[in-house]
């Protein structure tokens, strides 16, 4: 088992002597005061998971081949230290006796939002440090089962100014053999003083302005050997930094867009806006084997997955699948009926590729979750309707989850009642509901099968059994953006 070379990532990095561990972690987490972004490991409250978590805290499981550490990872923003970490079990005596302080490890210096592998077993974490020699990108892969850092690599981008923006976008191959790293390098150029109105006074004043110039580099981490290929610098200066990246088992698919300023677009009637392009890179390559234009919209945070067919798909405008052929880049668009409804507010949709090749799609803002089968022309094989939850547009994005067996859907309760509900995925029938007036903001299913609901007000974590009995509540002192 590899140990982390990074002193502050991974459960193995934490001290493990009871309460002191949590205090140290809290101190680290709050080192920068309120508003620090933190990744925190929290214990699951399921009986078996709690015992495993206790083992981790006492050093028994870290680095072992345990299938679960009984932990999950919270990503979010710390609040003031007055929000003490606390875990409270409410039903199971076993759970109550095992209750312990929550956060057991933390990192606070991530350079990008964590990315989970397609099977959710691994977590990719990026750190960027700037020095005179350039920008050093360090990428770590954490096993969610053990909490240990299993791969760690770094490379330097030389000769970039200290204020360069470095954005790392990892893409795991579905077979977990390779992680492709897309690194956007953005430099402030043409820094100058320009006149700008002060809207409060109406006076013009000189302010600093700059033009951002971006390009990309690629690197490939071989998960079997730990070796790194790259970085390969693409000849794409003038693109925008934001990209969408998807890895198949052998290639990287990359959506980018040219900056209209770099295209010297000037004002004219009916001049077409630039379209994105899709480039396909075999693993280990710095040159695309194929580049084709893509329909709008520009890349920027839309869900994208590799399909079991070897093709890739991105979900745009929260309702349309753009499917790209791995063979020749041909693109087709499919609009699954369950996602077709639209609302005045942005209505996020999620997409997850399942082991059986199906796609699990959700759009909580219109009260729909569905399974589609790409092998059968994206036929909708399950379609569940549920009442729209309160404020479905905000974070975390996970408002509906599918059980591991694929037979049960867990969703946030309606705007009227809050709570959680479960549905039979095959029939769409309501199975169970829990509501006591709390509007949760997100729902996740942990490896143990325990459901975790996040909330905006303390206690911000609520644990439920799969049949929606409340197991306990906790608060890690952070406002949760996502759970891994």
């Amino acid at each position, binding site marked *: 088992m590899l140990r982390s070379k990074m002193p502050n990532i991974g459960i193995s990095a934490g001290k493990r002597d009871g309460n002191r561990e949590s205090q140290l972690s809290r101190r680290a987490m709050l080192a920068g005061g*309120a*508003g620090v972004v933190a990744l925190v490991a929290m214990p699951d409250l399921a009986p078996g998971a709690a015992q495993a978590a206790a083992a981790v805290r006492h050093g028994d499981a870290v680095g072992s081949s345990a299938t679960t550490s009984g932990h999950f990872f919270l990503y*979010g*923003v710390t*609040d003031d230290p007055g929000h003490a970490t606390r875990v409270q079990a409410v039903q199971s005596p076993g759970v109550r006796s095992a209750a312990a302080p929550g956060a057991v490890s933390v990192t606070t*210096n*991530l*350079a*990008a939002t964590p990315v989970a592998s397609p099977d959710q077993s691994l977590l990719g974490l990026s750190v*960027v440090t700037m020095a005179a020699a350039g920008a050093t990108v360090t990428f770590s892969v954490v096993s969610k089962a053990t909490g240990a850092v299993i791969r760690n690599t770094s490379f330097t981008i030389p000769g970039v100014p200290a204020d360069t*923006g470095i954005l790392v976008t990892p893409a795991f191959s579905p077979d977990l053999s390779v992680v492709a790293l897309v690194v*956007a390098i953005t430099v402030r150029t043409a820094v100058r003083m320009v*006149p700008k109105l002060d809207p409060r006074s109406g006076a013009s004043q000189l*302010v*600093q302005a700059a*033009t*951002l110039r*971006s390009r990309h580099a690629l690197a490939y981490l071989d998960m079997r050997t730990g070796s790194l290929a790259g970085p390969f610098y693409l000849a794409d200066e003038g693109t*925008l*930094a934001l990209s969408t990246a998807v890895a198949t088992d052998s290639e990287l698919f990359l959506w980018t867009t040219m*900056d*209209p300023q770099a295209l*010297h*677009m*000037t*004002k*004219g*009637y*009916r*001049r077409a*806006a630039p379209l994105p392009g899709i480039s396909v890179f075999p693993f280990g390559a710095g040159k695309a084997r194929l580049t084709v234009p893509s329909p709008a919209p*520009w*890349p*920027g*945070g*839309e*869900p994208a997955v590799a399909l079991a067919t070897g093709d890739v798909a991105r979900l*745009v*405008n*929260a309702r349309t699948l753009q499917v790209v052929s791995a063979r020749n880049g041909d693109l087709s668009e499919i609009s699954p009926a369950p996602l077709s409804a*639209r*609302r*005045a*507010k*942005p*209505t*996020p*949709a999620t997409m997850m590729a399942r082991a059986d090749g199906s796609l699990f799609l959700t759009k909580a803002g219109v009260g729909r979750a569905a399974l589609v089968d790409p092998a059968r022309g994206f036929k909708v094989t399950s379609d569940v309707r549920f009442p*729209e939850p309160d*404020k479905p*547009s*905000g*974070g*975390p*994005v996970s408002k509906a989850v599918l059980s591991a067996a694929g037979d049960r859907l867990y969703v946030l309760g309606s*705007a009227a009642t809050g709570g959680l509900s479960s549905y039979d995925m095959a029939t769409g029938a309501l199975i169970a509901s829990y509501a006591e007036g709390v509007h949760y903001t997100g729902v996740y299913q942990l490896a143990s099968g325990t459901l975790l609901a996040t909330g*905006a007000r303390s206690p911000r974590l609520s644990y439920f059994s799969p049949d929606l009995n409340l197991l306990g509540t906790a608060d890690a002192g952070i*406002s949760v*953006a*996502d759970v891994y």
Partner: protein
Amino acid sequence: MAGYDTANEIQNVYSSAHSEFGVSPNFWLRYFTPSPAADVVNSDPVSESRGAWDSGGPRIGCINEPSQSRLASGSTAEGQSDGQSFCAAVYSAYTSVGPLQLPTNGTLYCWLGQEASTSLTLNYWNGWARTVHDYVFAENGLSPLYPCLYCDPPAPPPNCTIIQDSSAVTCHAVWSSEPEPCTRSIANPPTWNADHCSVVPTKVWQYAEQGACGLSANVDLDMGAPNFNTANYCFYLSSRP
């Protein structure tokens, strides 16, 4: 002085909005890339602008609502890259539509969308807001973009505390999503009562959301603060494209 915001193309919703509310809006607030849960203006800016003209409300304001988990990023680079794409999208729409003009006051408010349960960090805000503030239109050398925040000021996750931090890039205005009296009219909007932060002024109020207020058309209803005309801080159309 009320208008609409919508995640749909204007050309596809203005008729139903007119049927429901009976008058032309004063402005439209619309989404630009990267707003992955919305239809974005820059995908087809000409049709969108025609829709705004035909609606009788030929003003288009600019919203950016990235994936909400990104707003919680500790990385300035994530805010910067979102801001870069957003500014490029705004500029692309501007250059693609001849009659789409910058506000006569030279001030185009740009709204970062932070939903109620979303956390915002200082690093993200500064990366996004600095990029927006510093952006210069190559077409004319102007720097017309001003960073602002759409949020629910009393919501628990960090919002006002971030934009009012002493090291924060200036936030020029707040667009508040609360409270929601659900007044179903843009001809007779409610008396101004928007929630606010302690320092940054609230200039726009979303007083009726479609979902919470049971509106039929795919629009939310918005109004400007007293003595603030939201339309003056939007693109305007000098003719039908």
